[in-house]
């Protein structure tokens, strides 16, 4: 796709630039997160709804319950390692002063949200121009970030209640149980609807597979980033911040 164009412009052949969006490491992180969360959800739901008939069909014997719990705990370790890797990598980048602030929440994101709302209510004709990550993607990231944090912390409390109560009051255990089981369902519903809509229904965004974004998508959905990288204007900007 990104081969050199022929010397004379051909109306049929056109060149299109491809923008790198996610590194291989980031894509691995995403898919490990996806798979581990899915397994944790599938093994966690029957435990949450223990009194329901369908749950009792799955967890029909104590051995099965133990087996499901073993899967849950092993997968949780994978997720914890992933979270530590993610945080560790961010800290290393921060020390090297190379951590991008693309994903951080800025005042601009709140303005973008307002403008997007105006656009959706037909009070504006264009979507706002977004940077590398738009506010919707930031919501997804930070929701998962804090959700995973809550799940890991509360899960560890539930796994080691005796050790935890050596230092913390006993009521953190029932509180952790409540958080763990509630947050899981909220996060699952949120990601399922929100993320699925954003990357599959609204448009099919396969950049988590390919790591790349084509020029058209870049210009349309990440105009500011496009301008920053190419120095070219897009029709998304100019009026977007008015």
């Amino acid at each position, binding site marked *: 796709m990104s081969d*050199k*164009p022929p010397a004379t412009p051909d109306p049929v052949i*056109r*060149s*299109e*630039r*491809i*923008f*790198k969006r*996610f*590194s291989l490491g980031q894509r691995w992180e995403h898919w490990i997160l996806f798979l581990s969360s899915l397994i944790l959800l599938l093994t966690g739901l029957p435990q949450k709804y*223990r*009194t329901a008939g369908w749950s*009792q069909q799955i967890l*029909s*014997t*104590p051995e099965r319950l133990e087996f499901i719990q073993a899967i849950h705990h092993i997968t949780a370790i994978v997720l914890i390692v992933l979270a530590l890797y993610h945080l560790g*990598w*961010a800290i290393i*980048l921060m020390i090297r002063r*190379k*951590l*991008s602030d*693309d994903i951080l929440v800025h005042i601009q994101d709140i303005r973008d949200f307002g403008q997007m709302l105006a*656009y*959706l209510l*037909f*009070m*504006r*004709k264009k*979507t706002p121009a977004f940077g590398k990550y738009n506010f919707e993607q930031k919501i997804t990231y930070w929701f998962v970030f804090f959700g995973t944090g809550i799940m890991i912390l509360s899960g560890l409390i539930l796994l080691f209640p*005796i050790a935890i*109560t*050596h230092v913390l*009051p*006993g*009521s*953190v*255990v*029932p*509180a952790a*149980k*409540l958080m763990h089981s*509630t947050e899981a369902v*909220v996060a699952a*519903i*949120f990601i399922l*609807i*929100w993320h699925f*809509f954003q990357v599959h*229904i*609204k448009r099919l965004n396969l950049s988590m597979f390919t790591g790349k974004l084509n*020029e058209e998508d870049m*210009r*349309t959905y990440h105009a500011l980033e496009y301008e920053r*990288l*190419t120095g070219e204007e897009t*029709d998304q900007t100019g*009026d977007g911040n*008015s």
Partner: protein
Amino acid sequence: MTRHLTFAYLGIIILAGIFFFQVNPAASAPLEQESPPNPNLSISDEYCLGCHGQPGQTTTLGDGSILDLYVDPAVHAASIHGSQGYACVQCHTDVGEYPHPAFEAADRRSVTLQLNAVCERCHTTQFQLAHDSVHAQALAEGKTAAAVCTDCHSAHAVQDWVDQETGETLPEARLAIPETCAQCHNAIYQEYQGSVHGAALSDENNPDVPTCIDCHGVHNIEDPTTTQFRLASPQLCGDCHADPQRMTQYGISTDVMSTYVADFHGTTVSIFEKISPDQETNKPVCYDCHGVHNIKRADDPEKGLQVQENLLATCQKCHPDAEENFPAAWLSHYIPSPEKYPLVYYVNLFYKFFIPTVLGGMGILVALDASRNLINWRRKNQKPQEPPAEEPATNQPLEEPAVENAPTEESAETQAIQEELPPAADEPSTEETAND
């Protein structure tokens, strides 16, 4: 035709079968009503008491022990059997005119076991129930001391323990029950007497507290050491303790059952009970914390579970490494409130607001986004030749959907096709290191 004949024959056979079984009453004795016809009914009680009403009548048994054959006429007359006119020979069926056949038995216990079988003639239901009991089991294993009918009901002084109209145990009988069981189970009786239930029974004959039979059953007394009994026991306690009518007068919360089932231990126990009642679990049931026969008030100053050390000691039975904070991990049957377990209460409150806010807001945004995209897409299809040049003219936000304007996607698309630039893929990729 042959088919009809077959049916007719079948019908005759069935009717004959029914008739045969109905005219064969010896097989199925009527329950509890009248004793079955007895060949010796002509023999009156006076006739028997002529000898057995005289003190000093004895016989020597196989092991050399002496069996007293005296029956106090007053005792029998005062019993439920005597007062309703049942005759000696209705139970002692094998004796008739004097001299009756000699009574032979190896020892005194054999006498009881031998004569006890006769109860089934009238009290078939109870006798059959007792046959499934832990006592009958022990008897079958050769433990002859295991209780049979007469050990609890006596032989000649049988009393009516049930109100025939309501089917309830009579108040006097409730008092007598623990003492009856105490004949063999004295150590447990002593514990029970000191418990909140036992004390209320013996002090005030409280009709609400359980006697032995309310938990263990009457005739089909179950082995209480089995896994099944253990797993089913919370329901046993719940029968009274989740009953508001019974509990309000004592100020005891009826949430004890539901809060138990909602917490770790109770959930597991109730599910084990449902799906694998044979499977052993170390999860505590009510009596693991509250005690079995020696149940005390939860606020008992010495033994009560509200005493922190007592609760910790109880936890440590299964969680030996637990320290003083640990017991609070169990909600102690409380429903979290700002006073009791505020942390749990406020976490719950947080999610009560968080869930509708987040999921509701997200749902609205997705719905708006989807409809706006759908409208855009339909407009694009309706007006495919719209010139994109019109775009910059109308920049100000509009209240009404601007039909004449092509959506942004379209203009971006048409322009992108004309792009002709050298591959600049290197440039963006240098930015990659900046990703977190």
